[in-house]
């Protein structure tokens, strides 16, 4: 194609394809070809560190031309690329690596190279009766703590929605539990629940005159964990819902007041649509985090009494670091991931279907 045809096509607004051999900043095909030639040649001919930098330069050139080519046309792709790129390198690639590792027999404390066992690890994990027990415990903890957090967080958000004197200061106070480090929360809650000099025991002793041992029974230990976790994370739910609540335009409420709508009606038609997305987000993230719950459980009860409050995450940790059964623990975690993915898909499907019905 001649230069004239190219310019005419561009004037008409159609996609102009740079002739293949023309060195332009948007000619990614040429850059790709160059890279495919230069990189092997460099690796073969030059010492490795020089070749490395040359290869890096070639890759950068390809990336640059791709970006220039896409600029102004593929907005979505460009905007999204850095995020996905970083996530791929930092998260997805290690995920795939450890997924591959779960098919081998690898123990982190032995120098022997991993041997391939196929689905062996998965079989061993699924046939272990201990796992089902741990899953039950985990499910119980997850349901309890997520329900507590959502309910309390939502009510808190309603409380803080309207302006009242001192709202700023009190909001800060409510947010402080989230800001503590897990180490501090675990250590100090253990201290509170301590039968001899813990605060809880002393408070109960005012009424009954005897030291109160909370962590003795499974129920008590569960209550202790759920309480600590809900205390720590209900401000999270509150913050999310609050960010949505303050986004509702005031004029809608004013119109509702003129029409003298009841509180429930107002909530259902005005408020709820605005916070629906955020409520779901909070539910999603807190559930995922609850499945991963390790620090709080470990520091307060260490999975006790016995192993009755040992959640899956604590068990995985024990497998991986106490018994060094690295591959087995990885297999278990991928089973857990599968469960969480299934659950999440259910959430999302349910929400999308309801959104489609509403429209």
């Amino acid at each position, binding site marked *: 194609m001649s230069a004239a045809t190219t310019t005419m096509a561009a004037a008409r607004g159609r996609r102009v394809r740079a002739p293949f051999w023309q060195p332009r900043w948007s000619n990614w095909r040429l850059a790709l070809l160059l890279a495919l030639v230069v990189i092997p040649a460099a690796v073969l001919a030059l010492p490795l560190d020089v070749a490395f930098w040359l290869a890096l330069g070639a890759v950068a050139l390809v990336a640059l031309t791709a970006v220039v080519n896409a600029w102004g046309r593929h*907005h*979505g*792709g460009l905007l*999204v690329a*850095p*995020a*996905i790129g*970083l*996530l791929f390198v*930092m*998260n997805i690639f290690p*995920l795939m*690596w*450890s997924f591959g*590792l779960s098919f081998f027999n690898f123990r982190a404390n032995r120098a022997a190279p991993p041997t391939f066992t196929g689905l062996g690890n998965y079989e061993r994990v699924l046939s272990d009766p201990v796992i089902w027990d741990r899953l039950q415990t985990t499910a119980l903890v997850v349901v309890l703590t997520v329900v507590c957090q959502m309910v309390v967080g939502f009510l*808190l958000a309603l*409380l803080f*929605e*309207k*302006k*009242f004197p*001192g*709202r700023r200061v*009190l*909001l800060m*106070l*409510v*947010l*402080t*539990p989230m*800001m*503590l480090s897990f180490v501090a929360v675990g250590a100090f809650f253990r201290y*509170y629940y301590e039968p*001899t*000099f813990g*605060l809880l025991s*002393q408070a109960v002793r005012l009424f009954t005159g005897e030291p109160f041992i909370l962590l003795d029974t499974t129920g008590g230990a569960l209550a202790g964990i759920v309480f600590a976790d809900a*205390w720590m994370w209900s401000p*999270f739910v509150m*913050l*999310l819902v609050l*960010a949505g609540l*303050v*986004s509702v335009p*005031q004029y809608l409420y*004013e119109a509702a007041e003129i029409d003298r709508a009841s509180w429930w009606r107002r909530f259902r038609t005005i408020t709820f649509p605005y916070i629906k*997305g*955020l409520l779901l987000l909070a539910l999603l*993230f807190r559930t*995922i985090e609850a499945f*991963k719950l*390790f*620090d709080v459980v470990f520091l307060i009860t260490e999975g006790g009494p016995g192993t009755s409050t040992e959640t899956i*995450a604590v068990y995985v940790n024990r497998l991986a670091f106490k018994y060094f059964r690295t591959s087995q*623990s990885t297999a278990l*975690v*991928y089973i857990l*991931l599968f469960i*969480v*993915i299934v659950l999440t898909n259910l959430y999302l499907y349910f929400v999308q279907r309801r959104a489609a019905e509403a429209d």
Partner: protein
Amino acid sequence: MAWQRQRTIGEAGWGRTAFAGVISFAYFFPVLWIILTAFKANNDILAIPPKWLFTPTLDNFVEVFFRAYSKGAEAVDTRFDLFFFNSIFIAGTSVLLALLIGTLAAYGFSRYPLRGNETYLFIILTTRMLPPIVVIIPIFLMFRLAGLSGTYLGIILLYTAFNLPFTVWMMKSFFDELSPEVEDAARMDGSSETRVFFKICLPQVGAGLAATAVFGLILTWNEFLFALLLTGVETRTVPVAMAQTIGGDIGVRWGLLAAIETLFLVPVIVVVFVLQHHLLRGVTFGTIKR
């Protein structure tokens, strides 16, 4: 009645303050106890019944920075000032980076949906689902190979990747809520895409940005496992140093731990206080009907 003030919608009175005050205090109480413990001498901490009135001492705070590691030895600089700086620098940078990359990506997902949008978003979500234990070994090896172990760059990149999923999901849900009419009007008037983004979309999602920043900061601030394995002596963060303080000689030094935690809380509280204004501001583009 004449003396009753006409309250506008969105305002409430002192009754609510009292109720909220009680609840806020209940939430704040354990934190308050930690702060009080930081000011107590050792005997007061373990006293039964718990002491509310005591003579405060700053010994614990001094001990954070200068500590005698064994009985009778001289007090040595514990380098906690470096650790605090590291925490602030690492957390701040990674949160800002995640906000930048994540908000752009969320805008892309929301306004320019790609084929397979849901798949990308779901994959982004799955990166959060695994307990960190699983990916720790590959990441550790990866960092070793790339020479990033113990550097600022490595841990900042990792934390940015941690904050991205939540940022993207949260900001996307805020961008989805915006009505396109104002944007379209601006586009018709000839404004470029960039200006539409910065002048129209961004200000409206201020509350979302603030909330995401707060969460990202809190998450990165208190992160322990990856900091333990991937930071070196010079880049160590406070949670790691805190754990090393406990796992030591004389059992749990509650006073020292409380002092470290109290000092550690201060920067976060400052940031949240500053961002509060945006959190509570909300949207006032009341001219568009949905």
